[in-house]
């Protein structure tokens, strides 16, 4: 057995790897802006219950007389509505903070579940080969040839509204992209010697898949997952806007925009405008971070 000192030289300590990554990531100013924006958005969503001026779902706190007030107006009880109110007299700022929470929840949950399902199926396809592989990949090709919004629309037409139904629809829409990436990187990895070594040592197929292949395919999957969260949030908002997404009792940003749509024509823009702005910032922040992740983690894309 070799001494620990010499082992340190071969395997660099974890922290330095992360430091190197952090340095490369922060070299781009737009990426830092994106990350900061994303951190703010996530914090606002997590702390919504404590920082929102009002609980937008507590009907006792709402006064219908405060309905459709423009930004900056003051209610009868002396509260200022910085972003105005909706038709129920709900403070838009509070509604946006709570809506952000639902949008992020739907986006992140669907991306994580889709990543797990897609990655496993992709790895399995690469490992199994033959008929199973070609059948799975045909399915992936087929699904990716249809626009995401159509597939989601179809599933929600069958299942009906609901937060979990939306998550399920998004998972079905998204899994194919992960499966394709996981298979592609697993095909490269499985030719390498450490897989052969594991096989020679008699490791079971599942062990090779989960303990050896999966960790080494994680990087490209993480890059895709970041972009997919943004796509999922935008798609959920679109579906909710069409009235097929989340129910009225749990309004996401898309639902809030839909609620303000009818008042837009009479010039009351704020009910739709500010939730849309929040949605835009969220999506752009995630995309900026995702772009940088791809540049840093993918050596081929580095320019």
């Amino acid at each position, binding site marked *: 057995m070799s001494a620990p000192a010499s082992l340190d030289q071969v395997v660099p300590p974890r922290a330095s790897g992360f430091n190197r990554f952090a340095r490369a990531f922060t070299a781009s100013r737009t990426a830092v802006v994106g990350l900061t924006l994303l951190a703010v958005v996530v914090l606002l969503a997590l702390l919504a219950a404590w920082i929102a001026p009002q609980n937008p779902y507590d009907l006792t706190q709402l006064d219908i007389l405060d309905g459709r007030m423009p930004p900056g107006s003051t209610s009868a009880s002396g509260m200022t509505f910085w972003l105005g109110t909706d038709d129920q007299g709900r403070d838009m700022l509070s509604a946006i903070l709570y809506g952000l929470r639902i949008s992020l929840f739907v986006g992140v949950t669907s991306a994580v579940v889709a990543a797990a399902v897609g990655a496993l199926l992709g790895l399995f396809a690469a490992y199994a080969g033959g008929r199973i592989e070609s059948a799975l990949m045909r399915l992936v090709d*087929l699904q990716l*040839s*249809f*626009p995401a*919004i*159509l597939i989601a*629309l*179809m*599933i*929600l*037409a*069958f*299942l*009906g509204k609901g937060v979990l139904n939306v998550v399920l629809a998004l998972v079905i829409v998204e899994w194919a992209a992960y499966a394709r990436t996981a298979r592609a990187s697993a095909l490269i990895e499985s030719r390498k010697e450490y897989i052969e070594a594991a096989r020679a040592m008699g490791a079971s197929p599942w062990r090779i898949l989960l303990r050896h292949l999966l960790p080494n395919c994680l990087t490209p999957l993480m890059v895709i997952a970041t972009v997919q969260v*943004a796509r999922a949030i*935008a798609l959920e*908002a*679109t579906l909710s*806007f*069409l*009235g*097929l997404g989340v129910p009225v009792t749990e309004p996401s940003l*898309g639902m809030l*925009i839909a609620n303000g*749509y009818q008042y*837009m*024509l*009479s*010039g009351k*823009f704020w009910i*739709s*405008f500010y939730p*849309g702005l929040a*949605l*835009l910032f969220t*999506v*752009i922040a995630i*995309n900026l971070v995702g772009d940088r992740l791809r540049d840093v983690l993918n050596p081929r894309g580095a320019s």
Partner: protein
Amino acid sequence: MSAWLLRRLLQAIFVVIAMTVIVFIGISVIGDPVETLISQDADQGERLRTIAAFGLDRPLWVQYLSFLNGAIHGDLGRSFVYNEPALQVILQRMPATLELAVAAMLLAIVIGIPLGLFAGVKPHSPVSKAIMTGSILGFSLPGFWVGLLLIMVFAVQLGWLPSGGRGETRALLGIQWSFLTLDGLQHMILPALNLALFKTSLVMRLVRAEAREIIPQDYIRTARAKGLSERAVVSRHLLKNIMIPVVTIVGLEFGSVIAFSVVTETIFSWPGMGKLIIESIHVLDRPMIVAYLMIIVLLFVAINLLVDCLYAVLDPRVRTSR
């Protein structure tokens, strides 16, 4: 070639049949059709008679076969709402959607190609950087929200353009079109712009990437060396070679424009088939949902088949590799 084509055709047919199964099972899951067909106070005997009359007492696979038989003969059921054959209602709405989609694609090309060319030919100009940033924005902006902003600015604040509807239409070949009248064109501008937003960014980036790839090549250098003006180099040598991939992508994206028109039509009350399907889903008009999905599936399978055949004609490697 013919063997390849036959296999590809069989594949397409298999996909269509598989989708009919999925759609049929899916549609059988939602709600009980008996509830919508029979009044609340009907007695048990009447219930059973109605169920038998609509054939809902048969096993699911028999129901599926009779649905498939109808579908082959162009009968996808009667709409509960319009009380007309569902297929007919959709086909009536189709020209409006196609017209809007074509207008959006044209806008994407007319705006996207010059901007992309500029960014590709002069990559270090600040204008090019602005164009590229704009295209990122085009990808990130939620499409439906942009539609609302367009209405807010151009219809409500400025009052320049109408906020919805198709405007005045005129008949051509027995079909009503908006693009033949001034009023119709005015109604079309905002929804077409909205629908074109994403594709414009796509065309822009594609043209820029292609231009960056072609400009360093020898024939461009030769053209410049023999003293051709920059204008002639770009329009005759560069643009011509860029057009092939651009036309391919634009053709491929046509389906997704029709898909996204579901959103645009809802925002701008454009009476096409996208708005129709959303309304049908809300009132659970099952024959309508089925008919729309089947038409969309056929459309996409046809587009994919066409593109594959085009590739096979253009690139012999595709034929031999399968």
